[in-house]
């Protein structure tokens, strides 16, 4: 085939393509690029904002439950114990962290001095990888030595540790009066509880004398 004929054929093909009005590579690339850009923009913000939402939701729930615990103690005129559970996540996805809590009425005392508990609800679990920040500076109650318990009670189905505080019928707690009590919820890191305060956290400040709960 001569060079002239080859050139002619190429021109013919180009003409034919233009008539067919299909995509050119450039057109396709533009479309794909636009789509990728949109997806990337959505993809970047959605999980982060969902996680923040979830963290906020958990914190609101905990704050409401702590408020409820005070109200329960006042209404029923019994001491109320609030327990925070430390256990690993069942699927083995998370380590031993404080990721659950439960509220119990104290109905009496056994002969060995231990309180008789009546749990008002089942154990509330912080889901979505939300845990309590381990550093006692951010979760003051965690400076207490945890009590080993389980696996038969608290329907967690495994051994666990817990720390707790008591609310008296007048709303007063047995927490140290002069220190500020705070619970901080964060998202679990691969290494467990983050060492330093992450950018995304919610804190609940509790007044040890009045039982008042403030969410940040």
């Amino acid at each position, binding site marked *: 085939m001569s060079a002239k004929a080859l050139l002619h054929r190429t021109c013919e093909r180009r003409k034919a393509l233009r008539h067919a009005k299909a995509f050119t590579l450039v057109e396709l690339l533009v*479309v794909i690029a636009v789509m990728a850009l949109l997806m990337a923009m959505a993809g970047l913000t959605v999980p982060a904002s969902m996680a923040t939402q979830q963290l906020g939701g958990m914190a609101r729930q905990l704050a*409401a439950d702590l408020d409820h615990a005070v109200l329960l103690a006042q209404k029923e005129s019994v001491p109320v114990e609030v327990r925070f559970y430390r256990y690993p996540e069942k699927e083995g996805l998370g380590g031993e962290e404080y990721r659950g809590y439960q509220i119990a009425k104290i109905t009496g005392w056994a002969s060995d001095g231990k309180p008789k508990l009546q749990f008002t609800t089942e154990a509330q679990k912080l889901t979505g990888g939300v845990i309590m920040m381990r550093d006692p500076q951010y979760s003051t109650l965690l400076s207490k030595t945890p009590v080993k318990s389980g696996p038969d009670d608290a329907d967690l189905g495994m051994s666990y540790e817990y720390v707790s505080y008591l609310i008296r019928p*007048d*709303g007063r707690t047995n927490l140290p009066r002069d220190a500020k009590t705070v619970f901080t919820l964060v998202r679990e890191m691969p290494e467990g509880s983050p060492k330093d305060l992450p950018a995304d956290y919610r804190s609940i400040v509790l*007044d040890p*004398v009045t039982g008042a709960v403030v969410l940040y």
Partner: protein
Amino acid sequence: MDMRRFLKPLRDGRGFTLVELLLSMSVLAIIMVLMADVVVRTQNTMSQATAHVGEFQEARAALDAVSSSLSQAVMDASWSYKRNAAGAATGYERVSDHHFILGAASDLVGTGAEAGQAMFFQAPLGFAGSFTDAPGSGAPAVAGTERLHTLVNAWGFYVKYDTDLTYRPGFLKDETATKLYPERKRFRLMQYSQPAEKSILYSKTFALNRKTAKAQALQWYQADLVANSRPVAENILAMVLVPYSANVTVTNSGEGYSDVKVEPDPLYAYDTRDFQWNGSNAISSSRRHQLPPKVLVTLFASEEKSYDKYVANSGDDDDAAAQKVRDVFKGRFAKYSDYEKDMTEVEKALGGLGLHFKALNATVTLRSGKWITEVTP
């Protein structure tokens, strides 16, 4: 429309044009935006419904706290000889070492007082154990002090407007934290809870029973009011207290009895030691060392979400927003005869500010309150 017209070009082997593709993408985008909008709306409704359940929970708990400690207020009054100037016994009179005072917050709290009333009293609440900094004691806090059930404490409630930074732990006060969670200047219901070992009430040098100046006498709580006050609930805009008293309607001194009627105080005030500073009169002697039989407690409570929005609508100026709330209560609840009118006007004005609020109330019966009045002793 004829579908074949749209399908035909494909059969010809032609593809979509860029314009067609972009058009379909934008249609898809619009549909997705609409769907997302529906989802967000549903979520909002859901969260509002959940929030509604827990609404005013904090305020309700606060009202319970007020009720439970107020109902336990004690006077521990007893009869003792009434002596004349020469020290000779001439009759009997009621004596007590306690003091129940309820009145306009501006009278009782001093600087920083808000609208409505405040009250201070004694109750056996068993609050102790701050020996570390008690005067004259360097001993550490004793664990056993948590079980002194009938130990009498000085107690009180009032509304204060201040910043929440005071109540935050250190890490929530730094620059990054305050950017994330800005300072909240709010009206709060405060509880004055004095540990028993800090009380000067029974002190010989203080000598409450010999005080004739009200300002000096009130030092039993005013001296450490700030140090021993803690917030019970946020967003309590005002507390209105209506004390009732047992007033004599019919007296038959010959037979030694009287008929009484329990009525609200016309001026929203009750002071068991009024005779010490204002002299004996019919009212002050009928209330002398006697607790009111009941008190109507009303808390005007708002919700944090709503108050936050209200501040934002007021140009993010906390203090200006608070001033508007104060103006609503200005001059209100001073005379009981205007109670109904004040209530309607305040509710109207708060609604006008766009605040979501509730007036929660409870009638608290004081267990050791007085329901009878003796014929002039």
